[in-house]
């Protein structure tokens, strides 16, 4: 009895020793040297593995950073410039200064602004719906509203507003990883400069149809009248394919275009309310700004327009039609 026990234990020990010796030599023979700095850099990164940098996870970026000679083109959008600075310091390089960015939803086609023309009863996915047809409204460029962007956001920065049917970005949580930009089949979401105090001015529309058609489909669409282009003192706005675009790096946030826009397609967010003395078209804008500041998120804002402004719009779209 005793003998059996001793024999078993000894055999097992011997096997263990043999295996250990074999493994020791195998490990020596097949050892792959890896730069120890990769581990250190990986620890400095946020570890979200979101892929926002363009690499499959944080380790991918870490090894690319260690292998590269400069920091050019390599950045962690989640950690931001602070993280990149510390990594650059560790690697003995100079970090690239990058303006903080944020995802911006360029569509204000809420249920009120953009009436439905048909009902979609298929799969609740923006990608599927937009592969099948033009969409539930007259605007084939606008938000589909099934929240593909919300599904891919790893930081919970996007949520659907059930009232407007549009996604909203939480500035605080958004890390500008760009996943939502890729997920949106309509290419509505854009990464824009965050701006001082998160103040931004942007054209909240991507509709390339002619003014009259856009106007019919959506109350707050860009009709491509070009008024903003003429108004902008900094040449930050360009008009292409019937839609205006504001370059966030050229824009100095003067907000002249916001007042000028006949349809209210240009949104301003996180600005203090305008002085009440301004009359005319500026009036509803002031309300809008107030709403925007009340909500910390860059909500696409909807508001009722004054009769004056509607008149203005009519004239403008007639002009465009001609």
């Amino acid at each position, binding site marked *: 009895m005793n003998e059996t026990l001793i024999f078993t234990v000894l055999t097992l020990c011997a096997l263990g020793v043999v295996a250990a010796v074999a493994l020791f030599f195998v490990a020596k023979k097949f050892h792959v040297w890896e730069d120890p700095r990769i581990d250190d850099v990986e620890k400095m990164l946020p570890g979200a593995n979101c892929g926002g940098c363009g690499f499959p996870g944080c380790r991918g970026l870490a090894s690319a950073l260690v292998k590269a000679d400069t920091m050019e083109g390599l950045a962690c959008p989640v950690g931001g410039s602070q993280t990149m600075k510390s990594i650059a310091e560790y690697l003995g390089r100079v970090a690239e200064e990058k303006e903080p960015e944020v995802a911006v939803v360029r569509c204000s086609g809420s249920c009120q602004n953009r009436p439905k023309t048909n009902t979609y*009863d298929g*799969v609740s996915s923006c990608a599927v719906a937009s*592969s099948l047809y*033009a969409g539930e409204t007259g605007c*084939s460029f606008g938000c589909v509203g099934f929240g593909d962007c919300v599904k*891919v956001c790893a930081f919970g920065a996007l949520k659907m507003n059930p009232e407007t049917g549009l996604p909203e970005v939480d500035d605080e949580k958004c890390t500008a990883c760009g996943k939502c930009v890729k997920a949106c089949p309509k290419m509505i979401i854009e990464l824009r400069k965050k701006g001082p105090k998160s103040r931004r001015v942007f054209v909240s529309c991507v509709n390339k149809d002619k003014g009259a058609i856009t106007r019919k489909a959506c109350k707050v669409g860009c009709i491509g009248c070009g008024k903003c282009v003429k108004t902008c003192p900094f040449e930050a706005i360009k008009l292409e394919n019937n839609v205006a675009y504001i370059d966030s790096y050229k824009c100095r946030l003067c907000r002249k275009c916001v007042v000028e826009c006949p349809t209210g397609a240009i949104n301003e967010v996180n600005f203090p309310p305008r002085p009440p003395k301004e009359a005319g078209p500026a009036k509803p804008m002031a309300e809008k700004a107030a709403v925007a500041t009340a909500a910390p998120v860059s909500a696409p804002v909807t508001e009722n327009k004054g009769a004056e402004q509607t008149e203005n719009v009519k004239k403008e779209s007639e002009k465009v039609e001609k």
Partner: protein
Amino acid sequence: MLKTFKIGGIHPNDNKLSKGCAIEKMPLPEKVVISLSQHIGAPATATVAKGDKVKVGDLIGKATGFVSADVHSSVSGTVVAVDAQPDTSGVRKPSVTIAVEGDEWNEQIDLGAENIPDITPKEMMDAIAHAGIVGMGGATFPTHVKLSVPDGKKAEFLIINGVECEPYLTADHRVMLERPDDLLKGVAILCKVLSVKKAFIGIENNKPDAIELLTKKAAGGGYGDVSIEVVPLKVQYPQGGEKQLIDAVIGRQVPSGALPIEVGAVVQNAGTAVAVYEAVVKHKPLIERVVTVTGKSLASPKNLLVRLGTPVQALIDYCGGLGDNTGKVINGGPMMGRAACNLEGGVTKGTSGVLLMNDGEAKRKPSSPCIRCAKCVSVCPMGLEPYLINVMTKNGLVAQTEPLHPYDCIECGSCSYTCPAGIPLLDFIRLAKGEVMKIMRARKS
């Protein structure tokens, strides 16, 4: 035992409500919206401007590039707009809108001609290309491109697709019954262009009258050294798919990613063959087609000969109008057609049917989780694994679906049809197909 294809397949109720209705000529509409992008490939470039007068058969869009097709005016009248107009799916496409005035035809069209002219295959091919003919089964691939056999390959057989496996549709069935001589002459022309001696006409067994008539006519001969054989096929969806039809008729399997010419076959639709006959013999471009307007909620289902560009609404009105209980209007058949959201969109070269579904039929089944029954795998005519492609695509692994060959999917919808859990498999496979093909193209270039 009747022939059919070997992998997968389903048996939906065929619901051929309009099979007994002779083809009726649809009265001319007030205006037509002719899309310049009615085919696969580059849209045609408009050759007319606003205010121009056109006659029936005049060229209004010139093909741009190799894979493209000419577009002709289907009516006579004045061009009122050359711009982007929404099609039945609401997508804006370059189009020519013509206000109809009278019915004056281009002088070159000779409607009286009946005999195949004595011209070379090359000239016949040019006539087909200039007539703007595309595959009329629905895929709308330019016919002259399909007939251009690449160097080093040889066509052995021509297979005419008279299967019409889509439920409800009867357009090809009526064409085969009412125009058998034109069809056979078209087949003879196609054979000459391809320089093949043997042509098959594949017809499903649910059309015994067409099988009998064409067998009798074909046996009569008179088509030179071309022998035409009618092959009755067992009813099974999607037999009208090119690869399935080749498998059913000549028992050869087209490899994944390859074209039918790889196994020596060229497939053309029955309607296309008639259009080819008209183009070569009568110099008549493709300006009209037979459309089945059908559905259980429609007063009188019909087979209509419709000028291209006629608004779909006009067809429905002609057949009794939209019923109150209409849930969906489908452009095409119930299996592969797409729900239309804009009935002002015009009939195109690929519109084989307009189907009205009532509220009950139109509703999608509520979907529940996959129960791993593998029914989708057993019915897929391309031998794919729909459940796997679906779940991978849903979970963001589209790029990894490449080894599962989503690009082989013919979008027949058999998987979605058969799924007991009501999972919309095809929707996600179609996404994966698009994504994977994009990746493959990027890798190539």
